[in-house]
């Protein structure tokens, strides 16, 4: 009956495979046997690489990718637009600006940076919404995207200005971080991220049916029993917190929230009870593989993972844009 009954276990198996593959490939290629040995025995030759570097890295990449995909799917339902995505809507830009302000102001790393990133993402969301509503009485999705790109560009300009006048060390470390990547992943960063992301992820799953109804339009949603304003506020806050957490953990990674829901809707259907868990698994797997590509293509150097997701995401965005305009 439900379309996602078979899709979820398959996606789960796929996600585990992606995690295993990503553990095997890296600057130092390892055999699966070596990985199993390392996981089982702390004294094995590659235990340090696997246990302290690669394992937390793939887990963090998985959680971050899954969160971005869930945020994207929720925003798309709320705005009734398959083009909505945290990066395109300016949320990532706002979060980076907030985080960079925290870094430049000399706040201690960790929670305070994540908090400032959240404030930045929320501010960007409110600004984008205000601009779009003023420009046209009804919320035109195209105006909303334009507003998102404009707010994102503005945030990026202010970020650049802040970094330009900061000391070289801050400039260098913040720039590397803004590129996006999981190079600094650790178990503590992974636990921090999981703790922050769990609440908005569960909230969005609890709102799954409300999202289905919001995708029908606000009047229909209201007549079918949804408090539209309250639901929208919750979705924006949840998506902003998720985006901010990903930016704080791994910098700006675009297009995951666009590509993954687009690919999965035809398979699991558009109902969010199934779609949200599915995009979490697939978004996680996609990002883990993108990160693997980022650290192996130009080995031993690394590409920012956002480069890989953009290479995949931009063509899909172009196709979606043409279809939406038609």
């Amino acid at each position, binding site marked *: 009956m439900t379309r996602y009954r078979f899709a979820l276990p398959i996606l789960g198996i796929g996600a585990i495979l992606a995690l295993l593959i990503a553990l095997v490939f890296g600057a130092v290629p390892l055999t699966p046997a070596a990985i199993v040995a390392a996981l089982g025995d702390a004294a094995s030759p590659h235990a340090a690489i696997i246990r302290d570097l690669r394992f937390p890295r793939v887990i963090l990449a998985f959680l971050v990718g899954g969160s971005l995909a869930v945020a994207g799917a929720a925003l798309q339902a709320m705005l009734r637009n398959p083009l909505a995505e945290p990066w395109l809507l300016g949320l990532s830009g706002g979060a980076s600006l907030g985080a960079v302000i925290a870094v430049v102001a000399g706040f201690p790393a960790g929670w305070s940076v994540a908090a400032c990133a959240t404030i930045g993402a929320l501010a960007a969301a409110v600004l984008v919404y205000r601009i779009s509503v003023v420009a046209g009485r009804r919320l035109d999705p195209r105006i909303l995207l334009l507003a998102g790109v404009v707010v994102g560009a503005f945030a990026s300009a202010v970020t650049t200005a802040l970094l330009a006048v900061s000391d070289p060390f801050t400039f260098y470390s913040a720039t590397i971080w803004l590129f996006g990547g999981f190079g600094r992943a650790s178990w503590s960063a992974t636990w921090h991220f999981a703790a922050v992301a769990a609440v908005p992820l569960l909230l969005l799953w609890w709102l799954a049916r409300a999202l289905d109804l919001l995708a029908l339009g606000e009047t229909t949603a209201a007549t079918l029993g949804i408090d539209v304003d309250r639901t929208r506020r919750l979705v924006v806050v949840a998506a902003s917190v998720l985006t901010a957490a990903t930016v704080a953990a791994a910098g700006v990674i675009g297009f995951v929230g666009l590509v993954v829901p687009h690919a999965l809707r035809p398979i699991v259907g*558009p109902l969010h009870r199934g779609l949200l868990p599915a995009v979490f698994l697939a978004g996680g797997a996609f990002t883990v593989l993108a990160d693997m590509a980022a650290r192996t293509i130009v080995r031993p150097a690394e590409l920012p993972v956002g480069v890989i997701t953009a290479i995949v995401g931009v063509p899909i965005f172009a196709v979606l844009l043409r279809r939406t305009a038609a």
Partner: protein
Amino acid sequence: MILQAAAVGVRYRGAERPALADVSLAVAPGEFVAVAGPNGSGKTTLLQVLLGLVHPDAGTVTLDGRAIGEWNRRALAEVIGALPQREEPAFPLTVREAVLMGRWARLGPIAPAGPADEAAVVEALARCDVAGFERRTLDTLSGGEWQRVRLARALVASPRLLLLDEPTAALDVGHEMELFELLAALVASGIGVLVITHQLHLVARYAHRVLLLDRGCAVSAGPPAAVFTAETVSRVFGWPVGVMRWTDGSPLIVPLRQGEVLPPGALSSTSSPQGSSS
């Protein structure tokens, strides 16, 4: 269970004149009520006020004696089924998924749909003459099928009142009649129906009462035979009409051609029901 608007007034910010002024209306189960009027006369605003989606600046709207604003949306969705004017689904749902959404006010955020919900979907689809459509996706439906699927979604939660905004816009005469016959059957089964429509001839034949709006004000209210006089309809819609009587005595409104003069006795231009006496 009665939905009642009393002396409702609405003025949108920056608008020159109020969208609604001093409008009163009531719908009870088993009643077929219509709202008619020219474009921009405030019909849709009235519907949104009745649904609690627009808060009136003046007057009150109550459901069962309780202010509509005090109802939470889930409780309201179980009592009132609605068909808003425009709706374009953003993603390709199946008919079953779309109609099941009508049960979510009842199910809440977590509870899975059970056999009772599935049975209600099948029954609502059958009632709206789209039985067996469960697995089709919405983008494959014709305009008439889509309207009937939406009606099934509004009925699947067994509401006691049904509010529809121009449900037959863009439907041909066959589909239009099917829909109004369905509404009449629902009214006969005890559901209260309020329909906004431009189809005066259908209002005249189906509605128990009609409210005629013009520029936000109630021009006339009552049984169609009393409201639809040639004088009133001509004035409100800004075009001369003649009013005949159908065999059952219901008014039959005929717009006149430019320069057309009524031959004496050919058409009644008064409100006295002549058709029933002949």
